[in-house]
Structures are given as C-alpha cells and as structure tokens.
C-alpha cells in the first residue's frame, strides 16, 4: 500500500471519529475561548494596545488547547489497546505518525479558524491586509506544534503517567517554536513588512522540517516496547 494512502487512512479515521464524537474540537474550542475571554477581562484594551499583547494571548490559547488535542489523540489509541491493532499491521509506522500529525493539525486549525475571528471581535482589532501573512504564521507554527507534540504524545502514551509527562517533555522542546510563533505573530499584528520577521518564519519552517524528519526516521523505535 502506498505510504501516503496509509497517512490518509489514519487521518481520515481520526477525523471521522471526531466528527461523530466531537470530543476534541468542542473541548479545545471552549478552553481556547475561555482563555480569550479571561484575557479580555484581565486587560483594559482601551489603554493597552492589542498589538503588544495579542500574539501572546492567541498562542497561549492555541498551545494549551493543542496539548489537550494531543493527549486525547493518543488516549483514543490506548483505550481497547487499539494501538496494538495498528502496530500489528504491515505498515510503515511513520505513516501512522504523519496521519496523526495531519489530524491534530486539522483539529487545531479548525479551532484557530474560529478563535481568530472571535479575537478580532473581542479585541476590536481588524487584520485587514495582513490575513495572508497571519495564515502563513499560523500554518507553519501549528504544523510544528502538531509534529513535535505528536512525537512526544506517542512516547508518553506508553507510560502510566502519560498525561503528566506530555507537557513536561513538550513545553521545553516547543520553546523555540513558541518564541518564533509569538514574535512573528506580533510583527504581523503590527503590520510590519515581511522582511522584519522573515527570520522567524525561517526558524518555524526549519523547526517543522527538523521535527517532521526526525520523527519519521525514529517513530518505529518510539512505538517499540
């Protein structure tokens, strides 16, 4: 079977499961909305400029809701030992990894697609002509977060304290990405020209590439007992 068909099968299975259960997206969405609302009440945005705080607020909401998505993604496989059914199959295990990354990316992207317009309304901050740059920043950093998060979720799912270990392992590894995401989003919100934050975009791109490649190469060992 072609490698990418396996990727699609795994991602489609997760999406179909989610469409029926709506467990992840609803939890993610409510959590992320709560973060936005709390920040909206915490700061007086008639005094504070949204540009200086907005990137941080948005990425706190995206990253923490993303951790929920990652935990649930592998919890589903751990219940009923479903992961063993996958591991028994004659497939390249890295295709399973990429399928999980695709599904997590889409869940997070769906939440972001709702959250960003809500933020625009809550904080009264129109993106205007910066939408294209904002999408680029969101896609690159969400992909990186899904890539590194799926790898660590797979590692921790084999352990008894997986839910506790996942953020402990993930957050230090995701620091460069979080930094890049917040800085490049700040530049986009401020309406700076692309040159000012091209290096941050390059950092996110390199991070995605490194983690996706490393995970694809190592995933067979990650899932080994």
């Amino acid at each position: 079977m072609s490698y990418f068909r396996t990727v699609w099968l795994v991602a489609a299975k997760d999406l179909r499961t989610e469409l029926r259960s709506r467990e992840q997206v609803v939890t993610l969405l409510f959590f992320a909305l709560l973060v936005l609302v709390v920040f909206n009440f915490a700061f007086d945005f008639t005094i504070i400029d949204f540009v200086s705080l907005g990137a941080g607020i948005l990425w706190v909401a995206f990253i923490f809701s993303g951790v929920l998505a990652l935990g649930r993604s592998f919890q589903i496989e751990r219940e009923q030992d479903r992961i063993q059914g996958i591991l028994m199959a004659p497939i390249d295990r890295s295709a399973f990894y990429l399928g999980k990354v695709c599904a997590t990316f889409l869940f997070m992207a769906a939440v972001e697609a709702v959250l960003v317009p809500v933020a625009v309304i809550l904080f009264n901050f129109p993106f205007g002509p910066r939408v294209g740059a904002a999408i680029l920043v969101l896609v690159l950093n969400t992909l990186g977060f899904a890539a590194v998060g799926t790898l660590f979720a797979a590692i921790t799912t084999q352990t008894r304290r997986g839910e506790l270990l996942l953020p402990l392992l993930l957050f230090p590894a995701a620091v460069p990405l979080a930094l890049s995401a917040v800085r490049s989003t700040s530049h986009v919100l401020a309406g700076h020209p692309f040159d000012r934050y091209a290096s941050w975009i390059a950092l996110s791109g390199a991070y995605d590439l490194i983690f996706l490649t490393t995970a694809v190469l190592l995933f067979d060992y990650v899932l080994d007992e």
Partner: protein
Amino acid sequence: MIGPAVSIRNLEKLYGPVPALNRLTLDIAPGEFILLAGPNGAGKSTLLKTLALLLRPNSGSIHLFGEDARQGDRTAIRRRIGLLSHQTFLYDHLTGLENLVFFGSLYDLPDTEGAAREAIRGAGLDGRGDDLVGTYSRGMQQRLAIARAFLHRPDLLLLDEPFTGLDADGSDRLETHLRGVRDTGRTCVLATHDLPAALRLAGRVVVLAGGGILADRPASSLPASELEALVRAAARPGTGPGALR
C-alpha cells in the same frame, strides 16, 4: 523439508524482575493447531504478544516462517500474523463495517469492502454492520474482533481467550470457523480456559506454568479431565517448567 512455522529458543521476557517467559523453547509446525493452556500468570498472553511482535523479549530468539523475528523483514512477517487479544482493538465511533474496512485497508486487501461485508455476515452481524461499534454488546464486539483478526487470512493465528463474551451461537460459529482454519492448513495458537471446546479443535496441547512449558502432548492423548488436573497442578505455588513433562 519444510521448517517450523514458529521456532522459539530460550525465550525470556521479564516484567521488571518478574519473569513472564522463562527460557521457553517451542517449535510449531506449519498447519499445527495448538492449545495453550495454563493458569493465570503462566505466560500465555505474553507468549502470544511476543509472537505477534508486540513485545520484545529480553533474550532468546523467535523465527517465524523461517525468518528471524528481530532481524528479518518485520513488516512482511506482520502481514502473515493475525492476533485476537483480550481487548478488541475496535473504534467505538466507527461502524462495524468501517472498522473492518479500516483494518483491511492497512493490510492492503484487494477488495477491502467486499471482504469486510463478507466478514460481517460470517460473524452473524448482518444488519448491524452500519451501526457504531459503541452500540454493540460485549459479545457482538467480540464477534467483530474475531472477524478483524481473520480478515486478512493470516498464516499464523494467535487467539487469546476468543470465546470470552460469546453466546452459544457465537461460540458455535467460532468453533466452525476455527475448524475451517485448521482444515485449510493454517497455523493456530489458541490460549483459552475453555478447555473442552479447545480440545475438540487442537492437535497438540502445551501447558504453561511460571513462564515455561509444564507439559507438551498430543491432544488425542489428553482427555479434558486430565488437562484440567494439569492446569490445576500448574497453578500450585512452586510448580515450575518441566515438572510434569
């Protein structure tokens, strides 16, 4: 001469300091139907999962179909193995048919949907194939799990307590199905506490105790009462491998 389908040498598997498999050596010929008996904790499930390449042994070797399970083409070996475990591996939010199509697609079956529909019929789940598995009873889930394990027609079937949760009709279907497996020359290792049903199918009985082999006999020479006595003896503290061989 055809070599054994399964060849295990000095297999050792430890869970922490506790040995689950204790230098176990066993050969299984192609087409053999083996009943794996023994008390709880004897190492039956660990042996099946190790044979399914889901557990890595601490020492010893496994050759499956002549290929070293550690060094050989593990993907090719996996294609030839079917496992029914204690858990069903099924997704509650997919229908019975979708579950089978998903697993069948992972095995790249030529007509996955056709094979899945046929398997649903064979499992006696006609009319429920399009229902979510979460709505199935435990017995129905077990029927579907059995259909999943058989779907890609594996050369080596590893069955761990397959009769669990099945009603009389389900047990009869499974027994008929397993008879078909035996008659088509596929290799089967069946671990169960339902000894009379398993003895009707098996050609050879291996009794495990403490992670090793306590007895290894032809099924025809072992009436159910004697086998039950053996299993009870295996459960006694201090009974180790080879004590009654």
